[in-house]
């Protein structure tokens, strides 16, 4: 945050100096912000907003990828449970639990590392939502409530003993993801 402010201040100072020089050198005095600077800033604004939208798209892609993997895994786990093959079901259930937990945390630890780096740089995608208690710091799509639902579901999935229990544990994942991905 401090670095960003410093860079911004430097930029503003430089821009001010250019504007001042421009003003002094020509006559009569012009009060309007130089059009070129306005245009540059406008372009930058487009880029900043586009980057934020891109971040949203990337996180949604992470979620979509994880969810697709989870949907495939839940079918395999159900099949194994229905067949009474506990040995085969166990790794599938654990994989599914991990995938669902990662939906709750918007990705695995590698993604968490990137999110942390963004926070270190002062970037909060949902700053207002964080202040309102809706989002955890740095989260883009998954709300706190959705996160808790998904984390609880992941534990329930890991402990599912049969297909019925797995379906019950999976149901809130489907409804939560459906709501999140709509947005």
């Amino acid at each position, binding site marked *: 945050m401090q670095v960003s402010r410093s860079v911004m201040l430097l930029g503003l100072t430089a821009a001010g100096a250019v504007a001042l020089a421009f003003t002094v050198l020509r006559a009569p005095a012009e009060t309007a912000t130089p059009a070129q600077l306005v245009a540059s800033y406008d372009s930058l604004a487009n880029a900043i907003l586009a980057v934020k939208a891109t971040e949203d798209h990337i996180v949604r892609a992470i979620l979509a990828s994880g969810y697709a993997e989870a949907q495939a895994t839940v079918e395999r786990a159900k099949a194994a449970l229905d067949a009474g093959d506990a040995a085969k079901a166990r790794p599938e259930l654990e994989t599914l639990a*991990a995938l669902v937990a990662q939906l709750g945390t918007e990705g695995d630890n590698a993604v968490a590392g990137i999110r942390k780096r963004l*926070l270190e740089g002062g970037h909060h995608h949902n700053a207002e939502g964080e202040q309102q208690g809706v989002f955890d710091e740095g989260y883009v799509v998954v709300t706190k409530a959705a996160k808790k639902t998904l*984390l609880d579901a992941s534990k329930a999935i890991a402990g599912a003993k049969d297909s019925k229990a797995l379906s019950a544990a999976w149901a809130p994942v489907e409804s939560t993801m459906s709501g999140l991905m709509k947005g």
Partner: protein
Amino acid sequence: MCCGTGPARPHEARARTRPRAAEPAGLTVRVGGAAARLGPALLLLSACDGRDAAPAAASPPAAPPARFRFVDVAPEAGLVRTTWAGRPDKDHLLDSAGTGVAFLDFDRDDRLDVFVVNGWRVEGSEVLERGRHALYRGRADGTFEDVTESAGVGGGGDWGCGVAVADADGDGWPDVLVTSFGSLALYRNRGDGTFEDVAEQSGLVAPTWNTGAAFLDADGDGDLDLYVAAYIDCTMDQVLAARPSLDWKGVEKVAFGPFGLKGAADRFFRREADGRYADATEEAGLRDKALGFGFAVRALDFDDDGDADLFVANDSDPNYLYRNDGGMFTEVGTWAGAALDGNGAAQACMGVAAGDADGDGLTDLFVTNFADDASTLYRARPGGVFDDVTAHAGLRDPSYGPLSWGTAFADLDLDGDLDLVEVNGHIYPQADRHPELGQSYRQPAQLFENDGGGRFADVSAQAGPGFATARAGRGLATGDVDGDGDVDLALSQLDGPPVLLRNEGAAPGAWLTVACEEAEGGGPVIGARVTLTAGGRTQSRDVASGDSYLGSHDARAHFGLGAVERADEVRVHWPGGGESVRRDVPARQVLVIRRGS
């Protein structure tokens, strides 16, 4: 060696079962109005301790015996050297992180010794003193002798952080690993009272802010590997240049971080056949992808499959729970329920305790956290998952206010269940200037009594002067330092000497301590699991190196037995396979069980 400790007895001479002073040689004195059996060491210390150990005649006749009573005997016992912690205002988090403490028996004389890690004393950006670690050798009279210099474990001048004790080279003598800012030291115990630092020549190189560490046999090859957590990625120049810059609740500038700073990567070192260590972090699946702000590390077999898994408490980041499958680790903390609290929030975790809180045979985890946030009790469920049961266990409200660090499960009243201790102290000295915020820099430690079913009551106010004194506490280690059968506590604190809380409780319960040794003697055998059945109740303990907050407890397994004077069975599961069983074991002794016997 100048202190005349001499070599320990030959291994062969050690008795398999050693009655301790408490019962047979006991001298009965009155403590707090209740009869208690005290050995000569305790008597001597009591004589020195005019503050807390009142003679019988002075006790009010109606005063009930105190079930819990802890008294600081460190000054009289000779634990006096100051542990330095940077600058008075704690300008950087390194100033306030503090250091660990360990109980060990380095000279194998059956008396516990104490190791305290030291930091630096700094003023502004000037280093005034590079603190020397301290090794205190326990004497027969209950006091300690500072043998740091003769033992050669004072340190190479780096700012120390944590300590883990284990027989790293398998020669029967406990070695000492010290983590520091910028380096590791592995003090190999020569067995003659002296040590040599073999870290660098062994390949233990970690130029980062190292914190907690744990030895474990990760790959099941019979030797001990090492996991070392790391905190913030920064340089000593940055530490010394730091000034309070973070706005704290709108009232003060305090030390910045950890938010806004980059985490440092944890490391895993695999011990090779030639005794050297190789950095196998990536290979073992332990790459610290999230760069969590790592503090405490605890090895435990949480999924009960016979190998050592790892728990890493991260500050402000999700904790890691690494499951070991044949030497390859998978991080499962999030779905296993131990990475976040019950609301899905990452907490500012500092220390960890592992133990069976509710007597169901599974190892639960207790993690200490920042101020204005509860410490968290993760109850283990079958299948290797955890539930946050903090509120149900009665721990949310009493643990919410303080900023907590070192912690331990221990049966402090010898009634057959595990009580809990946490050591507290804020990181901002500035808190004392704002009492309206409800925090203070120095905070008393807390003791939570287990009701036998995993619910806890805060009994700190009834636990004697040791739990009434506010300190800038950090490290905590448990061990029966006076050999009377109950568990005593060693604490480290910022800018002060260590604290030794002698257990003077009047709880009448029996006890049994089990020392797990290698076939030739010595050890301890890290990763052994002891299961004891007595009076219809089964308890278990695991033997770990690296625990609490940057420290190590006495590695012997201690059990309270309540009114039962014999254990029906004591069973040791050895790491790598095999069991040893003893039946009909009398209580009130230290039972030594050697692998293969």
